[in-house]
């Protein structure tokens, strides 16, 4: 394996195959996240959810995809067509780019990654910060008041919660001493007789809670889905989009949910380490559990009002995250 990787042509072959494989796996995972969410939400609301297309409704997503692909692709009058078409593609591209640095444990010591960079988590922040362009540009180019309002709300929301999101992870970096995702996932401790991996959520529980809330806001999920709030903004930035462009937004949203869940697993739940369970199964299990947590949040919490959202972000989460950093730093200095 190492020999192929060091060969210049073999290197490219490995990278291209890895990317194609990733595309396939991630797209399938996204489709089944949508199915999983619809079934779980159905159970939460005491209704069956999708159960007609295929066994347990498993082919519902294929049917939806075909339906969306054959829909008329509508472009509003008197608008900037290039930006209107560009906006959803930015969203999908940003969502996929995050996966270039995410490592996945496969079997034993074998792991999968496209790029293992020193600033891994920062690259994820960088590409996910481009996601806001998809929403703001979509809202702007739709030439629709509701879309514009949704886009502007979203710009303010995403920029505000990025701060809390970034600071929530700082204690993790301080404990591990690295921003490389493989180092964080493989963090081990030696406490007395115990020597081995430990989920970091035990060391920074507050960081995880802040991360969970801010990441929900960053992905525009339900307690924080003000940019698309159906009841007040019809659909926000999504209002004028149809057909495949709508599909792209939808894809980007669910892909982002999987990305933040995977990050939560890597950063707080010890990645692919779970006793004697094979790494890939342990990883999948943990990611599914965190995704379920997000669906659960969506099924149980009402949407926040806009001013409450901003107050929560700036006056509660941000100071809490800073305090968490300071307290963790003091404890670290005291211990070492």
């Amino acid at each position, binding site marked *: 394996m190492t020999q192929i990787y060091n060969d210049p042509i073999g290197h490219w072959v490995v990278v291209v195959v890895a990317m194609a494989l990733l595309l396939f796996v991630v797209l399938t995972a996204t489709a089944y996240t949508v199915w999983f969410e619809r079934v779980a939400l159905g159970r939460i609301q005491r209704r069956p959810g999708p159960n007609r297309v295929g066994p347990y409704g498993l082919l519902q997503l294929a049917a939806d995809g075909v339906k969306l692909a054959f829909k008329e692709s509508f472009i509003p009058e008197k608008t*900037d067509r290039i*930006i209107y078409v560009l906006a959803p593609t930015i969203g999908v591209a940003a969502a996929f780019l995050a996966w270039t640095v995410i490592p996945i444990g496969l079997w034993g010591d074998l792991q999968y990654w496209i790029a293992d*960079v*020193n*600033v891994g988590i*920062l*690259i994820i*922040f*960088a*590409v996910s*910060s*481009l996601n*806001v*362009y998809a929403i*703001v*540009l979509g*809202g*702007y180019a739709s*030439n629709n008041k509701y879309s*514009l309002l949704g*886009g*502007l709300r979203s*710009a*303010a929301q*995403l*920029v505000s919660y*990025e701060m809390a999101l970034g600071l929530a992870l700082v204690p993790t970096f301080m404990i591990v001493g690295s*921003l490389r995702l493989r180092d964080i996932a493989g963090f081990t401790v030696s406490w007395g007789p115990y020597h081995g991996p430990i989920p970091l959520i035990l060391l920074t529980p507050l960081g995880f809670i802040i991360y969970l809330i801010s990441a929900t806001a960053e992905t525009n999920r339900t307690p924080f889905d003000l940019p698309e709030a159906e009841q007040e903004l019809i659909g926000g930035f999504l209002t004028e989009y149809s057909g495949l462009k709508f599909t792209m937004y939808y894809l980007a949203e669910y892909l982002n949910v999987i990305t933040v869940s995977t990050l939560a697993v890597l950063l707080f739940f010890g990645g692919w380490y779970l006793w004697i369970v094979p790494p890939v199964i342990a990883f999948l299990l943990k990611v599914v559990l965190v995704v379920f947590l997000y669906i659960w949040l969506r099924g149980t919490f009402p949407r926040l009002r806009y001013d409450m959202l901003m107050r929560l972000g700036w006056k509660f989460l941000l100071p809490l995250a800073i305090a968490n950093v300071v307290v963790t730093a003091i404890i670290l200095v005291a211990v070492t």
Partner: protein
Amino acid sequence: MAIAVFFIAAAVAILGGVGVVSFHQPIRSVLSLVLVMLALSVIFLLLGAQFVFAVQIIVYAGAVMVLFLFVIALLGPARELGRGRLRYQGWASAVFVLVLLGLMWTMLQGVQYRQPDKTDLNFFGTVQSIAVGLFTTYLYPFELTSILLLVAAIGAIYLSRKRIDESEGGPAEGLRPSAGVGGNLPPHQT
């Protein structure tokens, strides 16, 4: 390989720069500027500066340009007026470009390009090496810059606060910026 990536990134950056000044819709100018930032970040990456690469995208493309976009979206799709240029502006700009090119040409004569001495490129642009620099050699400039930013943030908040009339039960006397020192003037005085 790296040379090819460099020339592509440089060409994208220059095209983006041309786009910023030549588009008539402000939103397209903003997007061109985002393109410039992204191309610059790729060039940073080619130099081995991974941390600066990520920060360039997070800060400039992810935050600063989003605020530009926010303002433009808020003001609506206005087209920049094509008129009102200075006379002979095109010719003057061509002359200035030539002068600038000549200046750069003379300055770049005799510059030798080489790898930096004794620099481990695997460590050079990493978070650790930047942190060591920031918290040892450049600690005072770093902390002073943060104080400067804090002052700017407080000043911006102070200046943008609306002046609240006493009759409407605004904040207590001590919390309110007094008229004349800061805050917006009431309408009848303007």
